[in-house]
């Protein structure tokens, strides 16, 4: 603070000097005025842009502004002083102006100035520049600021290029020009970068209308989109495209051909959402890939690439999530910044550089919302109710929610058991309802139970932010239960398929034997018989089945979301809006009203959707692509829906966009969704006749194979040594120790930070107290001085009267 004060002082002093100098140069400038007039309008634009840039810089360090507001008074004093000095200097310069004008005539042009004058000019220009940068913090009215800005920028324009001498001068001018160009380029680049952030404007608009909690969902959605982009790039670029371009074409092998039985229905319309038929026997699913070690002229290691991409996507996701969490943890930083919350908001909220009326409206709305949020928070923190009743209600609410969860769990269990029964008896005997029962029930429960939780949570009377977290936790439990029930059902299905596979394997040998026995003479050396690949019997390929299930789940989930959106939000909004004119009560305020945006449900939907992607992506490489499509559509659809048919929540509140809560949930889901995937990869042998790992005992054998055949012998030896349990264990131990060490150090740093902050605060308070005391003292002294002065004047007047008396006397 003291440094700052010093700099302010210096700047004011410099300002005075500059004022003098400006007057000196006034005469010289008038001559050039005519020439420059033409250029002025353009320059003014540039000036404004610069001003904008300055203020945007200012905005970035809002924290400085707090100190600035504290320093308001100081600066005012200085301002007054400065004005006085200015007026003095003006009068001074006016008296001198005659002599100077003679000088100027003698000097003629700028180039022939004395070095001292040049030096002074340079200083003045620097001074102006400094003024421009610090202008926004000055406690002046807007008009004065604008006038000063314009003046000083013109001044700088005029003299900047003219400084320097002879050859050096030209170079200097060129340098300045280039600097300006460079600055402009940088600014444009910055603007371009902001424009490149996808959906930024949309999200800002939503934030201004609905508050930060709704915006945080959309920011999260955008972040998710970015991650899925990478996942999609990996699977598409390293798995799907190579296989499509270089792998064996469709129809060359049994696994790449639609079997004879399915051929009739392979092009049905239902393929679009069932992903059977031709879609099933394409690069979209695991089963299509061949176990050939290297494909194409590039010798692309397909199975290895498939395995590594599967592992890599998961590893990448872990890395990103954890890195984001760490970064957010840094931002939170501990300590409370909540003191002086309202004055903060009052003085620093408005952005003075908004020129667009629409944006200004938005900003206005957003500031109003943020004030509402702050007030609600303040109210919440001051309220105190009957604590026993509240506790009882909270326990009751949790009990009800538990009942609800148990009920929904049982229902899904029941449905899954029933569907297994159906599957055993053959699905063909049952109708559409029975076949899609599991998906339907899961979607419906996932849709309706959160509503019930929401209603129950009004019992608890929490602050909306905490209520949101509880709600999130409950829906999380619900979704997790649903998902794991689904996975357990899937595991059962895998066991069934594997049993079927065994039978097929046996039949296969018999079929082959029959083939050869029946048609080929014993002594034949002729060509082997060619059977069309569609006719060859084949195993059930459980991996494709798993992938297909996940794809179907994603699609039904997406459909449910969109249909809910269209019916629950859009249709409702339309009905409310247009029936309101001819209805017997007010639909907009009363019974149905418009819907609110459901942050918790949407966030969890997104997270679980991602979980399914992580789980299924290994068996269906098309999943990231589908998800990308879904997220893209979601972004537009939900942005539109939220602006078009939702109303802001009644209790607007703040949820930090970088909240670690979502991230923690995402991490848990990531972990939980990798578990089953890893389990299937590690413990179940791959199908014998489909997929890149067919014929191997386990899927990860592909690594060993690569090590043995593609690397030199010493490498595999080294690897085998390195994978020695003793070495691995000690390495793990080292890792754990390192983690522990780092964690403890980071904790210490945090504590030290907190203490430093506290220290600063106490110091600040101490200073304030001291200042107050000093001010009090000064006031006292002033009082005394005044009294003394009055006494003096009294005595003086007495004296005057007496002299008058004396004068009247004669």
């Amino acid at each position, binding site marked *: 603070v003291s440094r700052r004060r010093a700099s302010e002082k210096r700047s004011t002093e410099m300002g005075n000097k500059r004022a003098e100098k400006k007057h000196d140069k006034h005469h010289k400038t008038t001559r050039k005025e005519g020439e420059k007039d033409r250029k002025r309008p353009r320059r003014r634009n540039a000036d404004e842009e610069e001003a904008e840039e300055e203020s945007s810089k200012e905005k970035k360090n809002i924290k400085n502004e707090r100190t600035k507001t504290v320093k308001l008074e100081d600066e005012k004093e200085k301002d007054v002083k400065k004005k006085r000095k200015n007026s003095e200097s003006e009068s001074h310069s006016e008296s001198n102006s005659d002599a100077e004008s003679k000088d100027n005539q003698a000097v003629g042009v700028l180039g022939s100035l004395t070095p001292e004058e040049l030096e002074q000019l340079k200083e003045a220009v620097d001074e102006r520049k400094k003024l421009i940068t610090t202008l926004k913090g000055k406690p002046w009215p807007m008009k004065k600021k604008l006038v000063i800005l314009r003046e000083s920028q013109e001044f700088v324009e005029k003299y900047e290029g003219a400084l320097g001498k002879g050859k050096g001068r030209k170079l200097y001018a060129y340098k300045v020009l280039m600097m300006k160009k460079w600055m402009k380029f940088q600014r444009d680049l910055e603007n371009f970068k902001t424009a490149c952030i996808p959906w930024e404007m949309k999200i800002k608009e939503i934030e201004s209308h609905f508050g930060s909690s709704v915006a945080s969902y959309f920011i999260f959605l955008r972040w998710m989109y970015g991650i899925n982009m990478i996942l999609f790039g990996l699977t598409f670029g390293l798995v799907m495209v190579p296989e499509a371009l270089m792998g064996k074409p469709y129809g060359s092998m049994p696994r790449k051909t639609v079997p004879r039985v399915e051929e009739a229905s392979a092009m049905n319309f239902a393929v679009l959402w069932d992903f059977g038929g031709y879609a099933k026997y394409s690069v979209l699913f695991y089963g299509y890939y061949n176990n050939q070690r290297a494909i194409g002229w590039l010798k692309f290691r397909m199975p290895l690439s498939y395995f590594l991409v599967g592992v890599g996507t998961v590893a990448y996701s872990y890395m990103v999530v954890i890195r984001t969490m760490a970064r957010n943890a840094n931002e939170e930083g501990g300590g409370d910044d909540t003191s002086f919350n309202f004055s903060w908001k009052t003085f620093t909220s408005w952005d003075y550089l908004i020129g667009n009326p629409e944006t200004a409206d938005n900003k206005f709305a957003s500031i109003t919302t943020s004030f509402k949020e702050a007030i609600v928070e303040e109210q919440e923190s001051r309220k105190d109710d009957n604590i026993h009743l509240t506790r009882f209600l909270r326990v009751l609410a949790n009990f009800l929610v538990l009942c609800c969860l148990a009920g929904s769990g049982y229902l899904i269990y029941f449905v899954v058991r029933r569907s297994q029964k159906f599957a055993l008896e053959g699905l063909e005997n049952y109708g559409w309802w029975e076949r899609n029962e599991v998906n339907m029930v899961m979607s419906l429960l996932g849709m*309706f139970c959160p509503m*019930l939780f929401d209603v129950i949570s009004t019992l608890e009377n929490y602050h909306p932010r905490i209520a949101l977290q509880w709600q999130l936790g409950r829906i999380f439990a619900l979704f997790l239960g649903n998902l794991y029930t689904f996975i357990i059902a899937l595991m059962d299905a895998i066991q069934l398929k594997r049993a079927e596979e065994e039978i097929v394997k046996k039949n296969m040998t018999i079929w082959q034997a029959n083939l050869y026995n029946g048609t080929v003479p014993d002594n034949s050396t002729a060509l082997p018989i060619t059977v069309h690949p569609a006719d060859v019997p084949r195993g059930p390929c459980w991996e494709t089945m798993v992938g297909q299930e996940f794809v179907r789940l994603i699609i039904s989930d997406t459909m449910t979301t969109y249909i809910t959106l269209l019916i629950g939000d859009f249709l409702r909004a339309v009905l409310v809006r247009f029936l309101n004119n001819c209805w017997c009560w007010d*639909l907009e305020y009363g019974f149905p009203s418009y819907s609110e945006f459901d942050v918790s449900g949407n966030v969890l939907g997104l997270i679980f959707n991602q979980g399914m992607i992580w789980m299924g992506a290994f068996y269906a490489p098309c999943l990231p692509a589908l998800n990308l499509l879904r997220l893209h559509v979601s972004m537009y659809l939900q942005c539109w829906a939220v602006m078009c048919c939702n109303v802001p929540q009644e209790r607007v509140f703040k949820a930090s966009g970088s909240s670690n809560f979502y991230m923690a949930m995402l991490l848990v889901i990531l972990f939980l969704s990798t578990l089953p995937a890893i389990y299937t990869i590690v413990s179940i042998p791959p199908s014998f006749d489909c997929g890149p790992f067919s014929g191997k005992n386990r899927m990860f054998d592909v690594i060993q194979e690569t090590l043995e055949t593609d690397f030199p012998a010493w490498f595999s030896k080294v690897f085998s040594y390195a994978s020695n349990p003793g070495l691995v264990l000690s390495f793990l131990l080292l890792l754990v120790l390192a983690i522990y060490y780092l964690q403890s150090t980071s904790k210490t740093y945090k504590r030290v930070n907190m203490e430093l902050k506290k220290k600063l605060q106490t110091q600040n308070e101490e200073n304030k107290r001291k200042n107050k005391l000093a001010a009090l003292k000064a006031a006292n002294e002033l009082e005394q001085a005044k009294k003394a002065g009055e006494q003096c004047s009294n005595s003086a007047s007495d004296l005057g009267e007496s002299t008058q008396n004396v004068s009247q006397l004669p």
Partner: protein
Amino acid sequence: MVSPAIALAFLPLLLTLIIRYRYFFVLLYRAVLIRWVRDCLTGLSREERAFQYILTHATPGDVQSILDTFDHWCSKVEFISNIGPKKGHKHTHTLTHLSSSCEHCPITVLELGTHCGYSTVRIARSLPIGARIYSVEMDEGNARVAEKIIRLAGFDEDMVELIVRPSDEVIPRLREDFGVERLDLVFMDHWKRCYLPDLQLLEGSGLLGEGSIILADNVIFPGAPNFLRHARSSGLYEVRVHRATLEYIRGIRDGMAELTFLGIK
């Protein structure tokens, strides 16, 4: 056939709807079902039943007792959409404010929708001497009951004039038939659909002077959105909406609009 499991999955939705809109169900039960049953059982209309109850339970001539009995009947026995004690308090407040601001001039009140006379009695109670209420009711049966109740409360024809005609016929003829020069207070509690046309009629008749107050009940539920929109956008009024809950039923939000006529400039 839809399987029972899918039907069961709709149970949470059903529960949610029931819990969220429980007050509306209570209202439906009390205002419609009970009324229907009682109508069939007794053969009397709801208003007549209310009158019988008041006749047997309240002290004639005691306004407070009549109002209390009415409130009791509406909240405990059956439901009639009256203005209720809470909003009525606001009412009284406005009236006292009016009469204190204008000491000498006789206050003229127009009430649209007398129904059972509950609000008429409430207004009449807090009016100064010399004030006059014109109460408009369309339905003859209701008007008969209202008249009985008003007389029971002890207000005579000089104070309360009951007009049994539709409001849109009455308003243009107020000046000619009843010699009204200026309305100080207009209280609207009739059909919500008629709020806007009646307000426009009032504007056209020139009976509203500067400072005239228009109170409109139930502007949120059942609601009169067009009325509010007009009042806000016309610029003739200073609009305030007092938020409250629906009378005799907790949990349903409602509001009473207070329009102060600013005069035509």
